[in-house]
């Protein structure tokens, strides 16, 4: 079975600035990868490229053995993305937002699936309310529901904990794990070592667009990870 995600020599430049400098990754099916790094390390760029929202300058990406560049439209049905922003429309209700994205993803039996997800994220009671009336935490739950609508086999999460309190954070990971039941590959970026270590199988630390450290989570404890992170980011400061 090919890895869920495989990248080789991934480079992304914005004019003279290079955000990613040759990223080589291999994420096995069903595993969870945590990506750490200081601001500007290239985490969001990496997630956007994997989600095929952004094109890499060079390098190769294989999603479940298929090249992303040549099969982007088809492979997007296998990818779910939760980003910094919710990607949801403030003027539409929770139901209308999910219905819109369900149509875009060609989800079958839309009403049933939307009902399921609203239940899962505990938003059924607010399904007819406009998104603009929701708190940040509620919007983040809706963003998660949107990302899970089409049952993606790979879930990409870009700092999903942003703006969430500890309780909401726990609930979010509970939802992700409950829905996927161990079959889904997850790649997420985070600044929360403790939370990330509790859920991931592998860890990567990015610095200035390069992989500075890569390890299995089971070989690390919280102190060890923090120390590695400090070492990697100290290299940047020098």
């Amino acid at each position, binding site marked *: 079975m090919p890895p869920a995600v495989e990248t080789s020599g991934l480079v992304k430049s914005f004019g003279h600035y290079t955000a990613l400098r040759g990223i080589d990754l291999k994420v096995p099916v069903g595993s969870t990868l945590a990506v750490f790094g200081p601001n500007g390390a290239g985490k969001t760029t990496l997630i956007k490229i994997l989600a*095929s929202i952004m*094109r890499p300058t060079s390098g190769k990406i294989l999603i479940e053995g298929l090249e992303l560049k040549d099969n982007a439209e088809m492979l997007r049905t296998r990818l779910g993305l939760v*980003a910094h922003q919710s990607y*949801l*429309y403030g003027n539409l209700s929770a139901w209308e937002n999910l219905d819109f*994205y369900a*149509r875009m993803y060609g989800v079958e039996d839309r009403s049933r699936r939307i009902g399921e997800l609203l239940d899962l994220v505990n938003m059924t009671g607010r399904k007819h309310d406009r998104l603009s009336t929701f708190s940040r935490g509620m919007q983040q739950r809706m963003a998660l529901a*949107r990302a899970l609508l089409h049952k993606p086999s790979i879930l990409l999460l870009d700092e999903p904990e942003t703006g969430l309190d500890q309780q909401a954070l726990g609930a979010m990971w509970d939802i992700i794990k409950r829905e996927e039941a161990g079959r889904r590959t997850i790649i997420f970026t985070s600044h929360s070592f403790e939370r990330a270590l509790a859920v991931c199988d592998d860890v990567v630390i990015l610095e200035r667009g390069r992989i500075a450290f890569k390890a299995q989570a089971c070989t690390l404890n919280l102190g060890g990870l923090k120390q590695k992170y400090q070492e990697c980011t100290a290299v940047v400061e020098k």
Partner: protein
Amino acid sequence: MKFWSSVAAIAWKDVLSELRTREIIFSVLVFAVLVLVIFNFAFDLSPDLMLQIAPGILWVAFAFSGVLALNRAFIPEREENCLEGLMGCPVGREAIYVGKALGSLFFMVLVEAVILPVFALLFNIAVLQPELIVVTLLATIGFVAVGTIFSALAVNTRAREMVLPILFLPVVSPVIIAAVKASAISLNGQSWGDMTIWLAIILAFDIIYLTVPFLVFPYVVEE
């Protein structure tokens, strides 16, 4: 099939969102009616002379209210970065362009359907002529087709209210000029044959304005 169902979903989403707020329709209508009223008071001309300048007044109202509408077209996609959400969907970027253009076309046609009777009332000119309606529809298609891509380009600029008209109006001017000429022929009661050349120009630009943005839109939104 997937392409057109996605296009329909995007256009319907825009219509639904606008029906909630009525931000575009109200502001554009008020502006267009105001333009017509000001021109009505500014010129006190004989019916014959009025027929000569009326097409220009009509298209000033259409064009500037259209710019106002197109300025707002990509605002909902910028808030919460929804454009990225659309780009992550399993459809070609072209479907996003066509969906957004169809949504804008719906608003423009709706506004024009209100402006035309107001224009007829204020200037005492008969507008219920198939020639004028065809010219208006064809020119609006070209206007929206090229305006949608400039709207996507301008939305992330700081002074988008200025950037859009500066970029867009020079490019769309052939369509507006041809539409003014064809409308004048129509309002003067002349036949289809007299406006063939202007209709051909509008049609040619419609084809160009539909094809080029369709091809370049993926690069506009990705880079």
